[in-house]
């Protein structure tokens, strides 16, 4: 027990990443609000970044720095995704006065 509490190693960071990812998945699955779903997607991207950087830290050499580059690019993609996703939310709300994804069924038929 003391080992788990006081000897913080790479496994701790990986488990934290897994927990964060699962919370994001749960948010996308149980919430029906498009904004909350976007936030949950951001949480999942962050969880992936934590895992990347933990593995990068494990090797801790010059080649492993490419994980930092990768994480930087993931952050850029997340920013682009958030801007386009929020624009879609605003456009949908303007047309339908709701962002409840269960009520957006026009394309279903």
């Amino acid at each position, binding site marked *: 027990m003391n080992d788990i*509490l*006081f*000897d*913080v*190693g*790479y496994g701790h*960071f*990986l*488990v*934290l990443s*897994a927990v*964060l*990812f*699962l*919370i994001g*998945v*749960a*948010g996308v*699955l*149980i*919430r*029906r609000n498009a*904004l909350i779903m976007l*936030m*949950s997607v951001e*949480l999942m991207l*962050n969880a992936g*970044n*934590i895992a990347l*950087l933990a593995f990068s*830290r494990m090797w*801790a*050499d*010059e080649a492993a*720095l490419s994980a*930092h*580059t*990768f*994480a*930087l*690019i993931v*952050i*850029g*993609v*997340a*920013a*682009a995704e*958030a*801007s*386009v996703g*929020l*624009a879609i*939310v605003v456009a949908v*709300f*303007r047309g339908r*006065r*709701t*962002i*409840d994804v*269960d009520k957006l069924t026009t394309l279903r038929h």
Partner: protein
Amino acid sequence: MKIYALLVAFAMALGAPAIATAQPAPQAQHFGDVRTGPPAASYSPHDDIVDGHGMGMALLFWAFAIATVVGAIFVISRRNLIAAAMGMVGSFMGVAAIYMLLYARFLAVVQMLVYAGAIMVLFVFVIMILNRPEDEPVAPTGHVGQVVGGLAILYLIGRLVMVLWTVELPNKAAALAAPRATALGHAWGSVNAVGTDLFNGGLFPFEAISILLLVAVVGAIAIARPLSEDSNDEGTKGV
């Protein structure tokens, strides 16, 4: 809400000085003069961990991990959208601190700027524009949806536990907290090192991401602009 704010404040107050002391000493060698610096063998792994037994490291990790997870739970459990956004900010701050514990200093700052700054402002703006209470926060799905969703989450948890269980990890605090005696030494994860890697190996992704961001900006404006009949009215008024 107050309890969470207190928790975050406590974690920040606890973490800030400790992270400051966890940073390498000012006389740490720079990336450029690695080869003229002391040989790696003379480097002691205990030079810059918070204390000799990794206790401070553990304290920091747990404080920020709890802040991260509690913030994430806030995001998916709050009915109030602003509360969810603030939970997201707390979670992102915790993630930035976790990056710092992993010696990804540049990325920690980028995380603060991009996520806790820019993306949070974007979300808050949209929440303010919509300004609409949620009708049904949680999906009223039928039994089939609940069973399938529950099974999917259980399967995901099971796979993650299996992977983390089988991977043999060096679970030693000192090995994590101290930068390994590499050629880069203290400069590992600095702006200089990350930038060198970005503009050597990652040049094409870098250019691709700039085009992607340009397309995202143009696309966001094109999607979110008013409908054509509205814009005619605004156009006659003179913009």
